[in-house]
Structure formats: structure tokens, C-alpha cells
């Protein structure tokens, strides 16, 4: 049965080669499949994938309220000390003390966009933004304060 094997070898080889050529040929005649983006030219209509990670931001709603409770889960989750949370105690009108964030410090220059802080956050207060043009002339500008001035924790977030 040597001859049979030989012929089936040739057939299988040719078939798999033609399969590959079909795929590349399809790409060749369909320029719409091109995934390269002409970045500086198409800056206005740039299309980034949904999961692209540019930097960590804190979401604020229209009342300048965020959802960060200051639990420091993100700070503990961060593998390279990118996040530093300074907490304070708010005193409610009833005289009860409540823990809240004073400053959410984010060192962009140390961040590797690993997404661990976002996964650790129990209240979805922070998320990854898609901005990526981060270059600045002074590295101090890369240390960011994520909570906006005078922002408060949203009612009901524990």
C-alpha cells in the first residue's frame, strides 16, 4: 500500500497549501480587511478596541460624585505601587465619623496597565480610559490626582 500512501500524501499536501492560499488570497482582494490604522492622520476618527487600556481614571457623575470608598483594595492589588490613597474622616451632621478619600494619587509613569486595580475595586469607582497620548516634558505631570476637587462619595455606595 506504499503507492496509496504516497498519493494521499501528495493530495493532502496540495490541499493544505491551497487552503492557505485561499485565505491569503481572500485578504489580498479584500482591502477592507486591513487592520493598520494611519494613526496621526486619522486621529479624529481613531477606532480603538474596546479592551484597549490607556490610563486609570475615576468616573464622576454630573453631581461631581464618585464611587470610591477609600477601601485601598486597588492600592493593595497594584504590583508596582502605582496607586496611593490618602484617606480622611468625614463627620456627618449626626456627628458620626465616616472614612472617605482625601486624595487618590495615581503614578502614570509607574503603571503597566495590568488592569488589576480595576478588577480589585468592589464599587467600580475606577476604570481604564482609552487615552494614550501621555507624553509630557516634565515627569511630575505624570503623577495625577484622580478625584476631582470637592468631589464626594455618591450616596448609598458602601
Amino acid at each position, binding site marked *: 500500500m506504499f503507492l496509496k500512501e504516497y498519493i494521499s500524501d*501528495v493530495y493532502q499536501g496540495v490541499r493544505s497549501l491551497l487552503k*492557505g492560499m485561499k485565505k*491569503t488570497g481572500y*485578504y*489580498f482582494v479584500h*482591502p477592507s480587511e*486591513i*487592520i493598520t490604522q*494611519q494613526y496621526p492622520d486619522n486621529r479624529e476618527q481613531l477606532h480603538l478596541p474596546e479592551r484597549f487600556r490607556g490610563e486609570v481614571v475615576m468616573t464622576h457623575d454630573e453631581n461631581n460624585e464618585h464611587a470610591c470608598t477609600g477601601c485601598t483594595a486597588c492600592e493593595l492589588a497594584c504590583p508596582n505601587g502605582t496607586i496611593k490613597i490618602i484617606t480622611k474622616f468625614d463627620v456627618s451632621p449626626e456627628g458620626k465619623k465616616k472614612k472617605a478619600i482625601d486624595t487618590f494619587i495615581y503614578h502614570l509613569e509607574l503603571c503597566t496597565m495590568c488592569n488589576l486595580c480595576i478588577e480589585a475595586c468592589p464599587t467600580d469607582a475606577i476604570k481604564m480610559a482609552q487615552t494614550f497620548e501621555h507624553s509630557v516634558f516634565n515627569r511630575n505631570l505624570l503623577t495625577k490626582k484622580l478625584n476631582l476637587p470637592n468631589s464626594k462619595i455618591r450616596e448609598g455606595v458602601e
Partner: protein
Amino acid sequence: MFSFQQLAQQTHAWLQQHTGSFTVLVECAIVAVFAITLFAVLGLVLVLLERKVAAHIQIRVGPNRVGPAGLLQTVADTLKLLMKEGLVPNLADKFLFNLAPFIVMMVAMLLLAPVAFARGIQIWDINIGVLYISAISSISVIGILMAGWSSNNKYAMLGAMRSGAQIVSYELSAGFSVLCIVVLSGSLRISDIIAAQENGWWIFKGHIPVLISFVIFIIAVTAETNRAPFDLAEAESELTAGFHTEYSGMRFALFFLAEYINIFIVCAIGATLFFGGWMPLHIAHWEGFNHVMDYIPSSVWFMGKTFALILLIMWFRWTFPRLRVDQLLTLEWKYLLPIGLFNLLLVAIIAIMGWHF
């Protein structure tokens, strides 16, 4: 209607009238100028074409900054190569090192002689045209071995040795598939082979055996021109650049140019043998259809067929993975050669019995 044949005849008559006995010399000079111009233009066009085809196959855009849609990219590259320093390694065999690119280039130029570009446009219609092509094309391995040996570099040496084994093996298969056409048309002369395809190209007239020999021919010439998937001689990932590792500047450009010229020539020969060269698409007894096809100039037919084959070879290059040395030799000696031999027998039977159209 405009035709190159008329132009050539008029030029010949005019030259005979004005230069007398020096006509042949003047015509040689004209042919040389045309050949060199063709080489330069082909180099520019084919390199750009290759990069664009590669980009589209790999879902990229390719060169798109220099000139409109990147059309001047290769011109810029050529200028860069012209201005670069041609470095010679300290311990290289300087004479052979400098000679090698010119040998490779000369082989490419010699191969141009029997190629028929259009009706009546052929530099040298030699009566052993096909044999001449097979003989000359194997000389290029000497240039490659020379380059590899004289560079005094282990990568260059390995690449050259691989190339030697490869070209010597695949010459056989290419020879057998060419022989099929020689058997069918009964002549080694290129113009006779084209004339035999007046009522249909061999690929259609010769049934399946000619189709098989065409496939073998395309595989063998891809290997002979050292192109992927048979680019073991260069194998960027293993041997940096193989036999031309140590070359830079214009000498490197000559190797690069020779590769693309060789592709053009082998595709032109493939088009001549299997697709009728400049012969328009004729179908026997379809007079009206044949007449319409004759209106397309023969040079357009030739160039169209050649570039279609070039695109096919480029398609191979950007689809298939590189073979290992043992796989390369297995493919040749265990598959292509026996199939080619058996196929030649079939073609001989077809030719003797007159079964082809």
C-alpha cells in the same frame, strides 16, 4: 495599429541606410540600452509590487508615504543604496567578493536574450532557446557560491552551500517540465514553441499532464530563484541574510535586483512555454473570438501573463512557511522528480498518439 515589430523594422531600415556596415554594432548598443533600462524599471516596479502584495496579504497597508500612495518608495530606496558605502570585510577574498554580484547580474542579463517580448521582438531567436535558458540559469549558482565563499562569514558560507544543493536539485524538475513542452511542440526554438500555440495555449491543449508539469515548473523555478518557501539560502531568521550577509551598498543592490530580474525571466519563460508568450488567447475554429483577441497588442498579452505568474509566485512567498533542508530535498527527490518523470512519459504518449488538440 501600433506595433513594436513595425518600429523595429523601420529602425533597422533607417540604420542600414545611414550607418551601413556598423548597423549590427549600433543595434547591439540600442539593445544594451533597452536591456539595462528594462532591468532598472523592473527592479523598481517589482520591489514595490512585492511590498504592496505582501502588505495586502498580511492585512497591512504597505509603503504609503513617499509619493502618491507610496509609488516613489523604491526610487528613494535606490537613491539610498547608491549613496551607501560598499564595505568589503577585512579578510574577504576581495577579487571574488567584488566579482560575485556581477556574475549573478550577468547571468540574469544573458537569460534575457531568447525571451520573446512581443510579436517579432526578440533579442536572439536561437535555435536551442530552451536549452540555452536551462544551461545559463544554472550558472547563477556559481555567483552565489562565490559570494558565500569569499565573504569569509559562516552564515554566508552556509547559505551559499544550501543554495548550491537546492539549485542543482531543482534544475532537474524544471528541466523535465520544460521537456514536456519541447516534446509537444517538437522544437527548442522559442519562436516555434510560441507558433505551436497559435490555436490554443499548451496548458489548455495538453490536458492534465501539462497542468501537472506547469505546477512542477512553478515550484522548481521558485526554488531556483531562491524565493520563499525555498529561501533557505537567505533565511533571515537563521542565517541573517545568507550569502549576501556581508554585502552592502550597490553590490547588495545588484544581488537584490538580480533576484527580481530572475523572477521576471522565469515567469516570462513559464508564460512562453505554457501560456503562449505573446500569443493572444486563441480557441481553434472560433474565428470571430480569435479576431477580437488579436486586437489586444501582443506586448500586453506577454506582460499580462508574466505579471500574473509573478503575482502567483509572490502569493506563494507570503503564504507558505519555509522548508527545512531535508524537507526541501525530500520534496524534490521523492516527489517532484518521480512525478515529473512519469508525467513526461504521459506527455510523450500524448504527443506520439496526437491526442492533444
